[in-house]
C-alpha cells in the first residue's frame, strides 16, 4: 500500500483515497461541510483546506485531492489554521446569528466548527443577505438564510434517493437551494436531507421547535415500520418520544432512514390504549385488568380448543408472539397465524422466507428480478441499495408486477402470474447469464389462491437459472412487516389442521378470536368473541369485545427479526402509557387465569425459552450467510392462472396503527401521491 506522511507521521493508505481520508486515517480531524462519505465530492465549502507537499504553496481542498505516494500532508500548520479561519469567516458573513432560535442549535456543524476552527470575533459590519423560505414539503422546514450552499441535499436527493427534485439556482450571492417551483420533494427518503444539512437551513418540519437536543434521553433501538429493521436512536423527553434518528449500520440502513420510520413517532402519542376495556351492552367501558383478563379467560375456557384462534400483528416483538404461541398450543389450539396478508410462505426451510442475499449483498447482484414487490414503498432503503447497484452499472433489473417509477430503469416483463407461467426468453437469459442473479419476491405475488403456485414457479425458475448456488443465495423474500420473519421462525403458522387468517375470519369459524396487535385484517365479519391486545385504538380495537392495552415498539424491550433473518434487540425508550403493560406480561397473566400457566416469570426467562426452542433467535445482530437450500421445493405446484401482482401496501404512509395515528403520516399520505404508474408500453 502507498504511504503518505501526515504531520510527519507515515500513514499507509489504499490507492484512490483522498487526502482528507488519509488524514482522518492518521487520526487528524479535518473540518468539513460539503464533503460526505456517501455522496459525490463537491469541493465547494473549502473548509477542509490543508497544506500538501509537493504542490503549489497554497492551501488545498483535501476532500477533492487524491492522495499520492510520498505526499506530505500538514493539518496543523499556521497556513492551515489561517486558511480555516478565513473560510469560516466568509461562511459566517451571510449566516444569521439566530442560533438561540435555531432547531439545529446544539447539534450544528457550523456552530461546532466555528468554535473549533474559527476566529474569535467577526470583522464584518455590512448587511447580511436574506433568502426567501422555500417550500419543500411536509418533512422539510427551510430557513434558507442559514444555507451555506454545501449542496449535500442536492447530491443526496439526486444520487441516493434518485429523485432529482432539489437544485441550486442562480449564482454567487444570489445562489439559492430550492425545488423546482417549490414543489414538494417526492422522495420517501426526504427526511435524510435534514440530517445531512450541516446548518439549520433544512430542519425536521414535524418536530419544529419541539425540543432542544440536549434535553433528550437517547436510546439506541430498532425500527419496526418496515421489515428492514433499520437501526435507530429514539430520543425521548420525559414520557414522550420526540424524534427518531438513524444509527449507522452498514448491513441495513447505512446511515439513512425512511420518512415513515422517522416521522411516524408522533403517532405514539395519539390514539393510545391506556386502560383495559370491556364491551357491555354493545358499548366499551373502562375496566380493571382483573375484569378484562377474567372476561377473556372465561370465554377461552368456555370454548373448545379448535374454536379459539390467534392472529399476530405486524409490529409484534418475538417474545410476545412466543408467549402467545405457547399459550395457544398449550390450550390445544392449532389456529395460529402471523401472516396477516395471507402470503403463502412459512413452510420448509428457513431460507424459504428470508432475504437470503442480505440487504448489503443485493448490491453485488448483477441481475435482479423483482416479482410482485414495489421496493420503493415497501422498503425504501432497499430500493436505494438496488439503485446503487444499478448506478454502478453492474446490475440489470427486471420487474414482474406493477409498472411504477422505482428511481432506476428496468425491463418491464409483465403484470402478473401469467408472465411467470410463460417467461419471455429474454427474461430467463438475463438471469442465466448473470453470475450472481437475484430474485426479490414481495407479498404482492404470494397472496391469494395462486400464492403457493407462484412461489413454486419462482423456485423452479430460481433453480433453473442458478439463483441458489455455492457461495451465493439470491432468493429473496421481501417482507413488509417487522414481525413477520420472527413469527415464521418460531412457527407462528397454523398447526396441523389449524385455520389460517382467512379461515379464522370467516363467520362462525371461531368462538374466541385473539388479535395480538393485528390491525391489518378485517375482523368485522367474524362473529367470535374478539380480544384485542395492542397499543393503538385502530382497526383491531374497533369492534373488539375486550381491549388489553399493550406497549408500542418504543415501550418494550423485544427481539425483531428483519427480512434478512437478522435478529436485533429493541430497547425500551419510555414506559407504556397509563395502565398498559408489556405484551408478554399480559399473555403471562392471562395464561394463569386460563389454567395453562406459562413457565416463565421474567422477560429473560421467556427469552431463554425462545432461544432454546429456536436457536436462530440467540444470534443477535448476526446475519447468517445465505445457505444453499432446495429452492425448487418451495410452495406447491398449481394453476398460475392470470393474476396481476399488486403490492400489498396500498398507502405506504398508513401501513400500521402507529403510522395511522400520526399527523405527519396523514399529511404525507395526502400530499405525496402514490408513485405514478407509468403508461404501459
Amino acid at each position, binding site marked *: 500500500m502507498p504511504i503518505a506522511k501526515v504531520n510527519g507521521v507515515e500513514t499507509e493508505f489504499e490507492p484512490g483515497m483522498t487526502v482528507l481520508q488519509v488524514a482522518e486515517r492518521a487520526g487528524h480531524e479535518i473540518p468539513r461541510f460539503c464533503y460526505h462519505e456517501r455522496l459525490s465530492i463537491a469541493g465547494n465549502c473549502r473548509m477542509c483546506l490543508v497544506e500538501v507537499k509537493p504542490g503549489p504553496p497554497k492551501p488545498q481542498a483535501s476532500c477533492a485531492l487524491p492522495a499520492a505516494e510520498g505526499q506530505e500532508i500538514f493539518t496543523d500548520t499556521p497556513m492551515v489554521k489561517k486558511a480555516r479561519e478565513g473560510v469560516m469567516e466568509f461562511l459566517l458573513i451571510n449566516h444569521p446569528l439566530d442560533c438561540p432560535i435555531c432547531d439545529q442549535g446544539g447539534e450544528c456543524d457550523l456552530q461546532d466548527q466555528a468554535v473549533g476552527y474559527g476566529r474569535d470575533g467577526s470583522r464584518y459590519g455590512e448587511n447580511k443577505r436574506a*433568502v426567501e423560505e422555500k417550500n419543500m414539503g411536509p418533512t422539510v422546514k427551510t430557513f434558507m438564510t442559514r444555507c451555506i450552499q454545501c449542496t449535500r441535499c442536492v447530491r443526496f436527493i439526486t444520487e441516493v434517493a434518485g429523485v*432529482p*427534485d432539489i437544485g441550486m*439556482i*442562480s449564482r454567487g450571492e444570489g445562489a439559492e437551494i430550492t425545488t423546482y417551483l417549490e414543489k414538494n420533494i417526492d422522495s420517501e427518503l426526504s427526511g435524510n436531507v435534514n440530517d445531512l444539512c450541516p446548518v439549520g437551513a433544512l430542519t425536521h418540519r414535524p418536530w419544529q421547535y419541539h425540543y432542544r437536543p440536549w434535553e433528550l434521553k437517547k436510546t439506541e433501538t430498532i425500527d419496526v415500520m418496515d421489515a428492514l429493521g433499520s437501526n435507530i436512536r429514539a430520543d425521548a423527553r420525559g414520557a414522550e418520544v420526540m424524534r427518531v434518528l438513524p444509527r449507522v449500520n452498514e448491513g441495513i440502513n447505512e446511515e439513512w432512514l425512511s420518512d415513515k420510520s422517522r416521522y411516524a413517532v408522533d403517532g405514539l402519542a395519539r390514539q393510545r390504549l391506556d386502560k383495559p376495556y370491556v364491551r357491555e351492552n354493545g358499548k366499551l367501558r373502562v375496566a380493571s385488568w382483573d375484569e378484562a383478563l377474567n372476561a377473556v379467560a372465561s370465554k377461552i375456557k368456555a370454548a373448545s380448543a379448535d374454536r379459539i384462534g390467534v392472529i399476530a400483528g405486524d409490529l409484534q416483538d418475538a417474545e410476545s408472539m412466543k408467549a402467545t404461541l405457547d399459550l395457544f398450543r398449550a390450550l390445544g389450539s392449532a389456529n395460529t397465524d402471523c401472516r396477516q396478508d395471507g402470503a403463502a410462505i412459512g413452510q420448509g426451510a428457513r431460507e424459504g422466507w428470508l432475504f437470503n442475499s442480505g440487504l448489503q449483498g443485493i448490491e453485488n447482484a448483477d441481475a435482479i428480478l423483482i416479482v410482485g414487490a414495489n421496493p420503493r414503498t415497501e422498503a425504501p432503503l432497499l430500493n436505494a441499495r438496488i439503485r446503487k447497484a444499478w448506478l454502478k452499472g453492474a446490475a440489470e433489473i427486471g420487474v414482474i408486477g406493477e409498472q411504477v417509477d422505482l428511481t432506476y430503469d428496468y425491463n418491464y416483463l409483465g403484470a402478473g402470474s401469467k408472465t411467470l407461467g410463460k417467461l419471455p426468453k429474454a427474461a430467463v437469459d438475463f438471469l442465466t447469464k448473470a453470475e450472481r442473479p437475484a430474485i426479490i419476491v414481495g407479498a404482492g405475488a404470494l397472496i391469494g389462491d395462486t400464492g403457493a403456485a407462484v412461489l413454486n414457479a419462482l423456485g423452479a425458475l430460481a433453480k433453473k437459472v442458478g439463483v441458489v448456488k455455492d457461495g451465493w443465495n439470491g432468493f429473496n423474500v421481501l417482507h413488509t412487516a417487522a414481525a413477520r420473519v420472527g413469527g415464521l421462525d418460531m412457527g407462528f403458522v397454523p398447526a396441523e389442521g389449524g385455520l389460517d387468517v382467512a379461515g379464522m375470519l370467516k363467520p362462525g369459524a371461531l368462538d374466541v378470536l385473539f388479535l395480538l396487535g393485528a390491525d391489518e385484517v378485517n375482523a368485522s365479519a367474524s362473529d367470535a368473541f374478539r380480544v384485542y391486545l395492542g397499543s393503538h385504538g385502530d382497526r383491531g380495537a374497533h369492534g373488539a369485545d375486550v381491549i388489553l392495552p399493550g406497549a408500542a415498539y418504543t415501550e418494550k424491550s423485544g427481539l425483531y427479526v428483519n427480512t434478512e433473518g437478522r435478529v436485533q434487540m429493541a430497547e425500551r425508550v419510555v414506559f407504556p402509557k397509563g395502565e398498559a403493560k408489556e405484551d408478554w406480561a399480559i399473555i403471562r397473566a392471562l395464561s394463569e387465569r386460563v389454567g395453562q400457566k406459562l413457565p416463565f416469570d421474567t422477560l429473560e426467562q421467556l427469552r431463554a425459552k425462545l432461544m432454546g426452542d429456536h436457536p436462530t433467535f440467540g444470534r443477535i445482530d448476526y446475519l447468517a450467510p445465505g445457505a444453499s437450500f432446495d429452492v425448487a421445493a418451495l410452495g406447491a405446484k398449481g394453476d398460475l392462472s392470470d393474476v396481476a401482482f399488486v403490492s400489498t401496501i396500498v398507502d405506504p404512509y398508513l401501513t400500521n396503527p402507529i403510522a395511522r395515528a400520526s399527523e405527519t403520516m396523514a399529511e404525507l399520505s395526502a400530499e405525496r401521491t402514490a408513485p405514478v404508474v407509468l403508461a404501459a408500453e
Partner: protein
Amino acid sequence: MSVRRLAKEQPESFAFSEDTKAKAEWWIKKYPESRRQSAVIPILWLVQKQEGWVSEPAIRAIGELLGMAYIRVLEVATFYTMFQLEPVGKTALIQVCGTTPCMLRGANELMRVCKEKIGDKDVLSADGRFTWQEVECLGACSNAPMAQINDYYYEDLTPETMAQIIDDFAAGQSPKPGSRVGRHTSEPEGGARVLTDPTLYDGSRAKKIKSLPNSQPAAEKAPA
C-alpha cells in the same frame, strides 16, 4: 447581480418551432447519446432566439427534450444572466455595459438616455417594444462606452448617438452596428497608426522558404 426568478406571468405552453427543433437536433447530435444534456445551453439560446426570452413551459420542454430533471435546466437558465427570464422588448433589447471602462467613458449618461426614452431599467416599456438593462463587461472596452442591442454591438456611443439609435429602432429601421465615430473595429480614430506599411502584409517582404521545419532534409549532394 440580484436573485433571478422566473417571470410571474407565464405563457400557457411552449412549442419548438420547426427551425428551432432542427437546430436543436443538430446540437444534440454533437454529443454522445448518454450526454444529451450537454446541449442545454445552445438549446436555451435557440429558445431565447425563438421567443425572445426563456419561459417556464420552455424550461420544461427543454428538460423533456434532453431527458433532464426540470430543476437542472432551471439551474442553468438562472445561472447565466444572458438568458432572459422575463419578456423583453420585441424591437430592441438594449444591454448597456456599466463596467469600469464604459462607466468612466460615460455609460451613466447612456443609461440616463435609455431611462428617459424607454423607462425604468429591466422593465418592459409600455408599448412592449423596448427593454434596457445594465450588464457587466461585454469585452469591448477599447470602444467604450458601448451597448449591445439585440445581437450586435454599438460602440463609441454618446448620449446623442444613443438617442438616435433608439429613435431609429423605434422608427422601424435597423441602425448599422459598430462604432459611432466611424472607426473600424477598435482601430484608433482616424485610422491605423502602426502596421500601416502595405509591404508588411502584401507578401513582398516574404522570403522564400527553403525547407519547412518538418519537411524531409534536403537530399545530400552526391560526392563530386
